């Protein structure tokens, strides 16, 4: 390609945050994903935040239908998708109206000028055109006729106008790729693999992508290109990974490491369905995915599969977990190992299906009838979902108990670079089943080992025939028992068994000095914002430390000691204080909450400002 345009000056940045937003049919998730993969391949650390409406296609052009994808990429290690946006691409007025507040002053604003016409402006609630009325003066505004330029670029491809307009997202991508000096190669490969069967579409998308790139290169109004150098990450081979994908792969790996067939019983629910989709793709890993008729069947089939001797898993989100409640009680009383994954979303009820929240901690800890303890673990980032699946399964089989794994919409849909582990680095998960017995003695399914764990005897084993069930059982023999003392014994035993896991899980780690003015205690997906905020506070000389909880039941056995050494405790949570209440009652300490339930993750600034308000 011959061009006479002299190269534009390049400004070096440590990091940048870009957000693509437009109508939910505008292909913004695709644009964001491509930009993410490209940046990751270039060696940046990346963190992403896809944000989309619950409606598949809300009326076109309305605020309700706006879908966005934010990417934070950096030459340093990063933990969040970024508080504020450095470059915002808005494909229509509604997208501008709903996203402008997050663009930093002086940030780059790329608008699809063609969408800023009368109807679009009215739908977004504008009385005048913001692209022309001077209201966007504080930003580096570039109004680009993306629709027109895309149509021109693809006119030789033989597409209808409607199809041609669907290539707009590739034009926008091309422009942003140029802006940050990213290679088009990965996206061209994607186009090839995705649209290979429709060469005219592949050709058009390629043309639109390149047209956007060349537009950046040549148009005078955009005067600078930005460069974000690769990050210094731990050596190894990396790939980009999404939370739900990491979790599914973690499950596959756990099954492999324990030489088990994997069974997933699931009912489709946002934002957990991708776990089902991912595992359904990998049947050749000896995976059975059962799409059940409802959440209750998803749960109870999982219990049946656990009885059968498989690695058994169910995955859902809050409302689905609510339906599983009775089944969870059966899982606890039968003392069968299985994993229950809750990809949390905004509640109560249907709540905010596509938005993130941490408000199901109480449900995981307490949401069952009777004294019904379950271990609860929470993943902290997309890549961590892989590790937590392995860890949860290891605990489930060692202690013969269902284990809760909490993630949330934010980390389930978010992505980050993931250092690919060698299988040799991953420890095996040993499982033993009692073998056939020919001595004619009656088998006791509730005899216990030193962990108070009972044997996992599976059907088909001669001589170990036994009956499980939801009625209280005599310890040892497993016979139905209504004996008052046995019931209390069993309730205490089931609680003790879970509490004893504290002897097996790692001690709580602390980021920062062992004592000080303030300890920030976090769990789950808020890790990134908390660690970033605490590091900033530490850098400004504040005596602040951070401990991030992976184990929410039982707590690590040194947690109480850690908490006592700080003057104040701050617990930021995307709920109204659920961990806070447990910490206060478990350790009889005062703890301050920072609570938010807006369906959005914390920004670093929110946490930092709270820290600053508590510590001089």
């Amino acid at each position, binding site marked *: 390609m011959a061009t006479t345009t002299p190269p534009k000056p390049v400004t070096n940045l440590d990091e940048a945050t870009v957000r693509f937003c437009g109508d939910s049919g505008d292909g913004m998730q695709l644009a964001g994903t491509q930009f993410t993969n490209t940046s990751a391949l270039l060696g940046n650390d990346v963190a992403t935040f896809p944000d989309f409406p619950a409606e598949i296609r809300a009326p076109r052009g309305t605020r309700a239908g706006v879908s966005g994808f934010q990417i934070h990429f950096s030459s340093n290690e990063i933990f969040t998708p970024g508080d504020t946006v450095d470059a915002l691409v808005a494909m229509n007025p509604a997208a501008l109206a709903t996203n402008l507040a997050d663009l930093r002053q002086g940030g780059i604003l790329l608008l699809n000028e063609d969408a800023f016409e009368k109807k679009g402006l009215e739908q977004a609630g504008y009385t005048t055109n913001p692209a022309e009325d001077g209201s966007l003066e504080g930003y580096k505004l570039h109004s680009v006729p993306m629709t027109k330029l895309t149509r021109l670029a693809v006119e030789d491809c033989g597409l209808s106008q409607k199809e041609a307009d669907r290539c707009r997202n590739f034009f926008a991508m091309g422009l942003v790729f140029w802006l940050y000096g990213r290679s088009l190669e990965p996206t061209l490969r994607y186009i090839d693999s995705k649209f290979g069967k429709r060469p005219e579409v592949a050709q058009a998308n390629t043309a639109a992508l390149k047209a956007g790139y060349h537009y950046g290169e040549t148009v005078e109004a955009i005067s600078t290109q930005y460069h974000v150098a690769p990050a210094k990450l731990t050596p190894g081979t990396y790939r980009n990974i999404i939370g739900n994908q990491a979790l599914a792969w973690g499950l596959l790996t756990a099954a492999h490491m324990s030489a088990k067939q994997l069974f997933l019983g699931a009912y489709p629910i946002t934002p957990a369905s991708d776990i089902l989709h991912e595992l359904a793709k990998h049947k050749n890993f000896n995976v059975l995915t059962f799409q059940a008729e409802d959440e209750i*069947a998803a749960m109870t089939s999982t219990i049946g599969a656990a009885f059968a001797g498989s690695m058994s898993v169910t995955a859902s989100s809050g409302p689905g977990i609510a339906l599983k409640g009775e089944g969870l009680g059966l899982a606890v009383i039968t003392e069968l190992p299985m994993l229950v994954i809750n990809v949390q979303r905004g509640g109560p009820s249907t709540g905010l299906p596509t938005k993130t929240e941490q408000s199901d901690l109480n449900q995981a800890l307490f949401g069952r009838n009777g004294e019904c303890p379950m271990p609860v673990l929470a993943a902290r980032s997309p890549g961590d979902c892989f590790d937590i699946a392995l860890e949860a399964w290891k605990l489930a089989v060692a202690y013969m108990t269902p284990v809760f794994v909490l993630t949330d919409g934010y980390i389930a849909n978010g992505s980050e670079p993931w250092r690919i582990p060698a299988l040799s680095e991953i420890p095996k998960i040993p499982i033993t089943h009692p073998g056939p017995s020919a001595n004619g003695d009656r088998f006791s399914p509730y005899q216990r080992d030193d962990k108070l764990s009972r044997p996992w005897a599976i059907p088909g084993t*001669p001589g170990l025939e036994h009956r499980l069930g939801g009625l209280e059982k005599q310890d040892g023999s497993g016979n139905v028992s209504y004996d008052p003392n046995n019931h209390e014994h069993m309730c205490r035993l089931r609680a003790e068994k879970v509490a004893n896991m504290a002897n097996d899980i790692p001690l709580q780690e602390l980021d920062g000095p062992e004592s000080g003015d303030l300890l920030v205690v976090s769990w789950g997906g808020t890790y990134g914002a908390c660690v970033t905020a605490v590091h900033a506070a530490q850098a400004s000389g504040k005596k602040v430390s951070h401990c991030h909880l992976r184990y929410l039941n039982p707590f690590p056995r040194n947690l109480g000691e850690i908490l006592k050494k700080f003057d104040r405790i701050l617990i930021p949570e995307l709920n109204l204080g659920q961990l806070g209440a447990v910490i206060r009652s478990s350790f009889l300490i005062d703890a301050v909450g920072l609570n938010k339930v807006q369906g959005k993750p914390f920004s670093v600034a929110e946490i930092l400002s709270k820290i600053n308000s508590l510590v001089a």
Partner: protein
Amino acid sequence: MSIETPLPVLKPSDFASDQDVRWCPGCGDYSILAQMKKMLPTLGLPRENLVFISGIGCSSRFPYYMNTYGMHSIHGRAPAVATGLKTCRPDLQVWVITGDGDGLSIGGNHLMHCIRRNMDLNIVLFNNRIYGLTKGQYSPTSPLGKKTKSSPMGAIDNPLHPLSIAIGCEATFVARSIDTNITHLGAVLKRAADHQGTAFVEVYQNCNVFNDGAWDYAKDRNTKAETTLELEHGKPLIFGKDRDKGIRLNGLDPEVVELGKGISEDDLLFHDERSPEPSLAYLLSRMRYEDGFPEPIGVFRSVDAPRYDEQINEQVNQSIKSKGRGDLEALFNSGDTWKVS
């Protein structure tokens, strides 16, 4: 030279667990338990390969009394528990024991989906037309007007008919028997055990405490020849003490006719349990004593169809055949990767 160890010959008593049976004296469940224990040794299956899964209710205590693997699960969910088990372990013979409340009310959804998937399970629904374990409320099969503690002015819910539901879901095996008709019951259970796919069996079962006599019309030795009709594949539908009555199709409706007087056996409806089309079986399930018909017992329908448990495992095999056995490192390294040194 290989020596095959012959399977031990089992007796009915080998299938009895060491637990005391705690149904009310005189309950119809005893008879079903006895017939099950009598029939199982005839299958030639090792005891460890049998699993009984139940829900909640009087009938659902059944697994505790069987010396096999078993699970007394939660209300209505036995078909789903059994689905998870059988999906992972097609080698096991899995029985689901349920009742009219457990199977058709709280667990109606699972029953329907289990049947339409043709899971290879044997489901035995003990129908006593009452909630026994909760002491006598009306059930989904209680007749209209039934006065119980929860319906003092009479039930106003139109009853469900278990076999009509099962056939509506295109069950591949559907049968009915009666707790006191022990020879017939044993034979039906055996047919169910031999069937591949969902075998659904309704057993008329008497609750002598809360709904005594609900099935007297079908059990009374003086009336049962007139009120029931034993189905036999390929035979005309004939009943009556003197075998002088039959069922004839008048258009799409069955009617009771007397043999002789110009009506011969050839004019009658012939039973075809292997008809791929379930309409005839459905028609039989609609014949009710209260409407002047004898109620058919025996096998309504027995056809072959692909089974879910077999197919889901076959998909795994096919996937391994076409893609090769899953390789985790290859999966992790698929797509775009980069090296950091």
